[in-house]
């Protein structure tokens, strides 16, 4: 790692992949992410997008905030913190889950890795120590942030399995979706141990690799070398955003604002509103926000996050939604939008008022078109459709197809 300047000169940290990423970055588009500087676009978001849907992509996941949770009450702690029943999570498995404040409003989402009895790894989008520490009162649990101790790389795409096999990860063919395990990568300077999970944020076949920072460049190099003839390429956040919308995944600060940050009244969102009711297990016993969520469930939702299929090709970024073309009555707004090159559809996630959340509902989106600086306002049809928009069977196949 390069010599770091003091934090007041250079507030953003660099991941162990930074040197490699910088070398491959063609247009110098870096953005801050969770305290790190990361690549937004290497060369072209579209080209990077196709590496996920057609071949293999590398995405530097290191800034994901990681916590190790141990102690006699680790499971009890997580079960009271999170909406899913973590008790059902066996060692070697991973679960996607969310957690809420007392009012049942989303604080963050993330993945939980069960690494042993009362030993867990939690990956989150934003730092959670303040809330985890509050949640730990009354539990015998140790929470340590290990973000900087683990480098992480997402290897995603139809050829990702072949690629991992190609770098010598024996047994990778047996890894099922939402499982994780330790694998050995043979190397010239000795073998490297990796934790690999069959998880991802793309909705496609894919893996996430977790490693010692010291091993990071060797793993990157091996993957790039082995995959060079098959179109492997590093991708930035923009391409990832396109695929995650296709897969119907939500992103904090795009599709909801964490209740830990909201200033205004009524801007928090519950998991029920975000369409994540399937993650809320009311039967498992108490968890933070349960009573509020139960009351919300009985009351019925006021609004919900839905998928939209929008007329035309212009992504409906930040568009307001109306019930009629005249635009007199608002019905919600778009939170994330993209043109899907695979589905050939204009897709969006939108927060929509309760009367219009049913699949098939027709709404109107207000979008602005830039015609060489002559702006046009268009009202276009937006139909509520099922999510995910794209879910290829290959993502679940075990063993995956070897190409």
């Amino acid at each position, binding site marked *: 790692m390069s010599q770091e300047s003091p934090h007041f000169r250079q507030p953003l940290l660099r991941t162990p992949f930074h040197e490699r990423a910088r070398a491959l970055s063609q247009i110098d588009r870096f953005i801050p992410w969770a305290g790190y500087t990361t690549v937004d676009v290497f060369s072209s978001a579209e080209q990077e997008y196709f590496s996920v849907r057609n071949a293999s992509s590398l995405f530097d996941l290191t800034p994901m905030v990681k916590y190790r949770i141990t102690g006699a009450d680790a499971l009890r702690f997580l079960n009271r913190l999170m909406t899913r029943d973590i008790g059902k999570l066996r060692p070697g498995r991973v679960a996607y889950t969310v957690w809420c404040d007392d009012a049942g409003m989303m604080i963050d989402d993330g993945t939980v890795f069960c690494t042993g009895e009362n030993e867990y790894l939690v990956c989150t989008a934003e*730092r*959670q120590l303040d809330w985890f520490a509050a949640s730990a009162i009354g539990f015998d649990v140790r929470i340590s942030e290990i973000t900087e101790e683990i480098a992480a790389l997402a290897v995603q795409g139809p050829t990702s399995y072949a690629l991992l096999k190609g770098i010598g990860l024996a047994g990778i063919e047996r890894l099922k979706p939402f499982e994780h395990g330790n694998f050995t990568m043979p190397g010239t300077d000795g073998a490297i141990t990796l934790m690999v999970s069959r998880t991802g944020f793309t909705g496609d076949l894919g893996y996430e690799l977790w490693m010692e920072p010291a091993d990071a460049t060797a793993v990157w190099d091996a993957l790039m070398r082995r995959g060079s003839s098959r179109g492997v390429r590093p991708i930035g956040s923009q391409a990832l955003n396109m695929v995650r919308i296709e897969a119907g995944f939500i992103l904090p600060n795009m599709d909801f604002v964490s209740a830990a940050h909201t200033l205004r009244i009524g801007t928090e969102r519950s998991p029920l509103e975000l369409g994540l009711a399937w993650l809320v297990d009311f039967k498992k016993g108490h968890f933070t926000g349960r009573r509020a969520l139960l009351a919300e469930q009985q009351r019925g939702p006021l609004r919900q996050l839905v998928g939209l299929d929008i007329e035309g090709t212009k992504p409906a970024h930040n568009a307001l939604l109306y019930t009629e073309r005249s635009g007199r009555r608002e019905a919600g707004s778009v939170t994330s939008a993209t043109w899907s090159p695979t589905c050939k559809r204009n897709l969006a996630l939108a927060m929509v008022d309760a009367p219009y959340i049913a699949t098939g509902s027709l709404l109107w989106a207000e979008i602005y078109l830039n015609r060489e600086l002559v702006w046009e306002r268009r009202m276009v049809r937006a139909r509520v459709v099922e999510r995910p928009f794209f879910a290829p069977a290959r993502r679940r196949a075990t063993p995956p197809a070897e190409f």
Partner: protein
Amino acid sequence: MSLRAANRYDAIIVGAGHNGLVNACYLARAGLKVLVLERNPFVGGAAVSRSLYEGFTYSNCSYVCSLLRTEIIRELELPQYGLQIIPYEGGCTMMRDGGHLAVYDNHDAMRREIARHSRRDAEAYDRYVRDMLRHCRFIKPLLLREPPDPTSFRPRDIHELMFLGKHFHGLGEARMYDTLRFWTMSCADMLEEYFESEIVRGHMAGSSIIGTALGPRSAGSAYVLLHHYMGSIDGAVGAWGFARGGMGAITQALAASLRASGGEIRLSAPVHQVLVRGNRATGVVLQDGEEIHAPVVVSNLDVKRTFLHTVAPEHLPPEFLDQVRRFKIRGSSGKLNIALDGLPSFPAIPAGSPSIRGDLHITDTIDMLERGYDDWKEGRWSRAPYVDMLIPTQIDPTMAPDGKHYMSVFVQYCPYELADGPWTDEKRKAFGKTVIDAIGAHSPDFRDLILHAEIRTPWDIENEVGLTEGNIFQGELTFDQLLFNRPVPGYAQYRAPVRGMYMSGSSTHPGGGVMGAPGANSAAAILRDLGRKP
């Protein structure tokens, strides 16, 4: 023009401090013939730039700007009259053990800075900022409104009370309780709900004691902290900045704006008394005996100076006078203005850190602040004072010759009355030495760089600026003196018991700091009474 006409105005404003000028500007813009009378040979009150040492400009009372309401700056077109406010970045709290906690604008830099002391606090800081901003959002709409009298049945009061009630109710149950608790908490207790590290707490607590006769453990000090947080610069809530050319630039711009709308200002014109006939203010008489008449007289002086010294007691209800006498306006702050031959070094601040251009504090723990308050209670200045220093010349080139620097040093606590008898030159020097030693402990070359130092105790501030007991807020910011209790119950709506007489100073809602809101609110009250549109 006859002499008679020349001495008749629509409104006379006594005192050319920032609130008096703001008030006069609004009245003049509404078409009134306005005269501002100032006893000093310069305008500005406590928002002044003074040249007390060759080549240097001192903001010798108030020294930073944040609270001045944007609405006022825009409506009075102050930028057009030369006002420019430059935000400064960050700051630094220095501990006696050599450690430090800097403040950085960048969120990640700030998180990593706090994480040097506590990783948990670095993240709790986000919750703290969120909650402070929530409280700011709650209080903001209340600043430019006249507080209702909760004991009255007048439609306007009931309407305003309902507004307050609705505004509060709109928070929802959970945040209503948070608000109730916050407004009544001590700063120390409040900070303990967020932070574990002593230095982080000590750093945050500094703003809770500035200008008050409270310690960080006194209930209500959390509000004082908010009072220092609720300003903004260019929409950045909580940001502080320098007025280019010193704080006098604000009042100079106000004076220019006033003159442009036809208002007059007379300097070196101390008012002896407000003229009252048949329970109506009719004008003022100056100390030289000259009478000037107007149906509206506005006092920008603090409430004690106004009613105990400039209105004859027979015109005022005895109960009102009792309440005015009870008004708490204790001085607790001192000020040093120092001309420096060069930029002093602070070894605690890392090389290259921009924090030296912000506000530098000497604090390390809440206990240190609280012990400083214990000293004040005993009638002596804090032996280990809380010091808030700024060197604006690093940003504003107009205030000192090239290579030299002006340093503003605010000191908490320093009493108006000493237990061992009145202030003397010797005691003032001893006070100055305490402060200079405290700074010297953090800056080895500081003492040698001093070219000139002005030392101001609350007693000096009273004598020079006219603020009773040298209280910088024209009255303490405690619950019993806020909102409808400010300055005294029943008279919180800028109107004096004498008809035609008004108050516009910081003794009125929403209180002190260079905010301008009391001046603007009282102008609105006057114009409403005159049946004019503001």
